[in-house]
């Protein structure tokens, strides 16, 4: 299993590297940043975010990136904080469940990038975090993960996904 995951990661390095480097270079890739700022230098990322919120946060570029990210690993968790340091009880619940099932999973800290955070809400049509993706498909938030874990459905689905 670890071998195949390593291969998987090597075969699709681009979305991960782009997401990982998001905080420094991501906003500059957005075509409408300067238009929204009216040509003036943006005061801070906070101001920028507030302005962008009026528009759709899910740009075609972000959508393409997310399409790649959610399929780059079998299990991808968008959460507050990291696997080792969750910064929200709901995110922590999902991390602990996935860990207890020994499922390999990648996490992305949405607190590090406000644009990603807003864009993902639209991308998944889901208003809150955490958001779990299995096999490239949105599986659910914390409540759904807990319920599926208790019913055994999550274990089944993960086994199937990890074997495929």
């Amino acid at each position, binding site marked *: 299993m670890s071998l195949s995951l390593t291969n998987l990661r090597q075969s699709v390095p681009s979305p991960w590297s782009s997401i990982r480097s998001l905080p420094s270079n991501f906003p500059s890739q957005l075509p409408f940043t300067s238009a929204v700022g009216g040509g003036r230098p943006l005061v801070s990322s906070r101001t920028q975010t507030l302005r962008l919120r009026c528009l759709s946060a899910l740009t075609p570029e972000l959508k393409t990136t997310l399409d790649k990210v959610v399929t780059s690993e079998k299990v991808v968790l968008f959460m507050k904080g990291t696997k080792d340091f969750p910064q929200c009880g709901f995110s922590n619940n999902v991390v602990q469940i996935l860990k207890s099932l020994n499922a390999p999973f990648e996490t992305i800290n949405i607190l590090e990038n406000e644009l990603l955070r807003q864009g993902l809400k639209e991308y998944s049509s889901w*208003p*809150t975090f955490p958001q779990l993706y299995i096999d490239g498909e949105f599986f*659910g938030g914390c409540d759904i993960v807990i319920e*599926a874990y208790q019913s055994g459905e999550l274990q089944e689905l993960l086994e199937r996904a990890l074997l495929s």
Partner: protein
Amino acid sequence: MGVTKEQVESSLRSKLSPSHLDVVDTSGGCGASFAVEIVSDQFEGKRLLERHRMVNAALVEEMKDIHALSITKALTPEQQLKKQQESEKSQVAI
């Protein structure tokens, strides 16, 4: 700024006509966090994810000010009845 339990209840009632609804304000007073238990025949034939999406959609305005929404139950009346019978049975068994 915050949302009241009554607002959440009235939106859910008008959009999902639940046969059972229990909304608990879990925010400790600021109105930013709620737990919802809901039974509605509109959930018939829908997967859990779709049911949660329906609840989220019914609360789309409120969600702007709610930070955490926990949907602890989203059942059809039939499932609710079954659960009640099961728990009664297990109590009898004890």
